[in-house]
């Protein structure tokens, strides 16, 4: 495997961890909503913790290996419009995702708005990464 292959694999694996974590947290939010007793929400603590780790690993891997890829590949530049758009959206997704995880740990209901914002940002990043407008 070449360096490019490794970078692409680790970048995409990070994206899978990030979107996987968002999916997991969405399931936890629905589960917490349906839980009638505090013990029902407490059962989800372990799952939420893993979601938090995945968000951390995913956000770090996507940005580090993504920027490294933009430097490594001749056709792309870090200052290309679609790369900058992805970095801005990534920052929005990270912050809203962090608030969603915090809100889930604090009770669940206030997390929905932040979770939707984070999911929307990640969805637009995915469109940006696949279509690469302007590349």
């Amino acid at each position: 495997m070449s360096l490019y292959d490794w970078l692409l694999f680790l970048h995409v694996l990070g994206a899978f961890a990030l979107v996987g974590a968002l999916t997991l947290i969405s399931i936890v939010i629905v589960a917490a909503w349906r839980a009638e007793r505090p013990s029902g929400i407490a059962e989800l603590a372990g799952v939420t913790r893993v979601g938090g780790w995945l968000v951390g690993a995913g956000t770090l891997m996507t940005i580090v290996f993504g920027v490294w890829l933009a430097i490594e590949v001749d056709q792309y530049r870090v200052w290309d419009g679609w790369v900058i758009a992805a970095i801005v959206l990534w920052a929005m997704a990270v912050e809203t995702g962090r608030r969603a995880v915090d809100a889930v740990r604090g009770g669940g209901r206030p997390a929905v708005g932040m979770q939707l914002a984070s999911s929307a940002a990640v969805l637009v990043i995915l469109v940006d990464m696949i279509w690469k407008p302007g590349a």
Partner: protein
Amino acid sequence: MVFAAIRPDSWNPALFVHVLAGMVLVGVLVFGAVALAAPARHHSARLRRFGFRSLLFAGLPAYVALFVSGEWLTSKEGLGGEDDPAWFIIGIAVGDLTGLLLAVSLVLLGIASWKSKARLGRVAGAFVSLALVLCVVGVWAMTAKPS
């Protein structure tokens, strides 16, 4: 410095659905693996039921979308013949095995939820964990494209 592979724009919608479905499936499998493979004292009937519903209402549709978009991409790339590259064969094998594990997990979890059988729920959790490992292998095959 290297050049990235360029693909026609007409492949992008299929690729978008394929990648998104794969990501959602991984998220559902992570939830299932963590919720179901937990030690017995944390393994409640509620988590088993939620694991079952997550796999049924999110995991299964994501797998179907992954499979259909994969076939769509296969037809666009002209693959599926006799001289298929190794990454494609690995992807097909991983996809089929993941589907099989998902189906077995759903059946086991359905029974475990219905009959309140914690041990069966943990066995399903092990299958879900195995499917998750296969998904990572699939991501490696699709990105590194070993020839």
